[in-house]
């Protein structure tokens, strides 16, 4: 019994640590860039490749730029791109799921086959194809991530709509003469909102991952922009000559927030479904 209590305490601490980390990162990303202006083009070869020190807590890259400051800028860019891409995929998926769930019958079957087909595709490869056909830009990345990741949202929304349709209050509204649009607006959307919100939150780290992967391959954001993927890519050369920090630090800025979000999600799921709690103890 005591060990179980101790485990719960450890888990509480983990959830708090994750929440605080995310808070601090969000604050840093919001506050630091407006205060400390970053010159994207700056090259200062006198301070190139400096190891981490008090002046540069995470060192400098081969152009003499501060890695910590650039990482914060990069996280900001990656977060914005990831958020918009996640929203795009939610809107596409939400609309298709809503259409499939509320129309039913043949349209539903056809739409769900399309969903199956899309989720059977290798996402990154398709994303690479999309960005390759257009010049490197945030829009190309957003489209390539949004277009390949809407299927989860479509499935969630469809199954919710299917169960909502059978509920008494929807039946009451329908028999009361409410129009299809009114049922969707007044009865379906308010119930779908929390599910969509959670799905979007979960989607953001994944979208950030895709953005950084595409940028790392040289296919994502324009190379002069401070983004996490670009920085890891730039750092490759320094890494081979022994300067580990210029690739290491930006990667941490992907790893830490993603891990924090997954700890929080796990906590959320455990609260919703206590049965899994004992088995998934971290």
């Amino acid at each position, binding site marked *: 019994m005591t*060990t179980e209590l101790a*485990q719960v305490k450890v888990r509480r601490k983990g959830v708090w640590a994750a929440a605080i980390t995310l808070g601090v990162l969000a604050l840093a990303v919001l506050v630091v860039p407006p205060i400390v202006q970053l010159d994207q083009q700056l090259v200062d070869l006198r301070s190139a490749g400096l190891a981490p020190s008090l002046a540069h807590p995470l060192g400098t890259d081969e152009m003499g730029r501060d890695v910590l400051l650039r990482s914060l800028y990069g996280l900001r860019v990656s977060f914005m791109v990831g958020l918009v891409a996640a929203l795009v995929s939610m809107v596409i998926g939400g609309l298709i799921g809503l259409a499939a769930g509320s129309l039913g019958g043949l349209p539903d079957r056809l739409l769900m*086959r399309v969903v*199956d*087909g899309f989720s*059977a*595709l*290798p*996402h*990154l*490869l*398709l994303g*690479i*194809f*999309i*960005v*390759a*056909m*257009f*010049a490197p830009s945030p829009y190309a990345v957003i489209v390539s991530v949004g277009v390949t990741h809407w299927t989860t949202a479509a499935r969630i929304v469809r199954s919710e709509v299917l169960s909502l349709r059978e509920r008494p209050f929807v039946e009451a509204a329908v028999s009361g003469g409410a129009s299809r649009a009114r049922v969707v607006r007044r009865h379906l959307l308010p119930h779908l909102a929390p599910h969509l919100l959670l799905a979007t939150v979960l989607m953001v*780290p994944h979208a950030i*991952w895709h953005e*950084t*992967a595409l940028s*790392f*391959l*040289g*296919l994502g954001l324009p190379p002069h922009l401070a983004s996490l993927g670009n920085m*890891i890519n730039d*750092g*490759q050369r320094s*890494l*081979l*000559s*022994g300067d*580990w920090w210029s*690739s*290491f630090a930006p*990667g941490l800025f*992907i*790893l830490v927030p*993603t*891990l924090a979000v*997954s*700890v929080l999600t796990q906590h959320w799921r455990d609260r919703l479904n206590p049965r899994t709690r004992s*088995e*998934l*103890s*971290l």
Partner: protein
Amino acid sequence: MLRLVLWRLAFAAPVLIMVTIGMFALASASPFDPVRQYLGDRAMTTSPEVVAQIRANWALDRPIMEQYATWLGNLVQGDLGESRSFHRPVLDVVTERLPWTLLATGSAIVLMLAGSLLVGTLAAWRQGGALDRVITGAAFANESAPVFWLALLVVYVFSVKLGWLPAGGLTDAASTTVDPLDVARHMVLPVTVLAVSQSSWLVLYVRESVIGTLREDFVTGARARGLRERTVLIRHALRSALLPFLTLLGARIPELVTGAILVETVFSWPGVASTSVQAALAVDFPLLAVLTLLGTVAVLTGNLVADLAYRLADPRVATS
């Protein structure tokens, strides 16, 4: 069983056709002019007649529907076209590089399976203990770490600092022949990184299901009969925990394709996955289109194999 295969094939055909239509639509909307891309700096000095000639040779002056029909027709007949960045037939590029990708990803799958089974079972056996916490924590952290970043860190530690293994390539730069031992040395890092990066979910899954089966009556029975802990763990708990295993593995092919693209690129492994990145950077439509289709075929095959394996492993599914 045959009906399942036919049903899957009936589903695969429209998916593949949809992919080809999507790729062609994107390519026709692309602001890049393939001829200019192909000529590069020479585009400035090449006469308009020559440019028009190349355009005609590639049938780019034809209507888009006709281009699509020709391309698809050739593809079905086995003519994959000419790569614009490698200046060689796409078929040659693919057949030369596919074996290296299959070798690397195949080894990674084997390593991933063996490693995850071992590590997951260990964690389940010591559930709640220090070892279990370290393993689960590492698995969660690993799940959040970008694979290309992990690959770079591994290169830094094992190639740059320790100098134990080569940082990339298929063979030593100086060697002119493909020596199996040399290739094996070059394979260690990419295969390990690919296997480790894909194994988090598997470790957690094995752990979960072994914990689940350890509570079952037949395990308690085995313990009560005085069987050794190792026998109980491996012969009883692990064995029945493995049923849905293949299904899950088949469903993970998309992630494996993704991982292969990134890992092959970091380690300059000359497989088809890293070639897709080179083709994308060069806006080489014929090659990139074929590689994207190849990736899709791999995923669809994975799904089919997963379904078949599930039916073979669990006959109850077949009747339902």
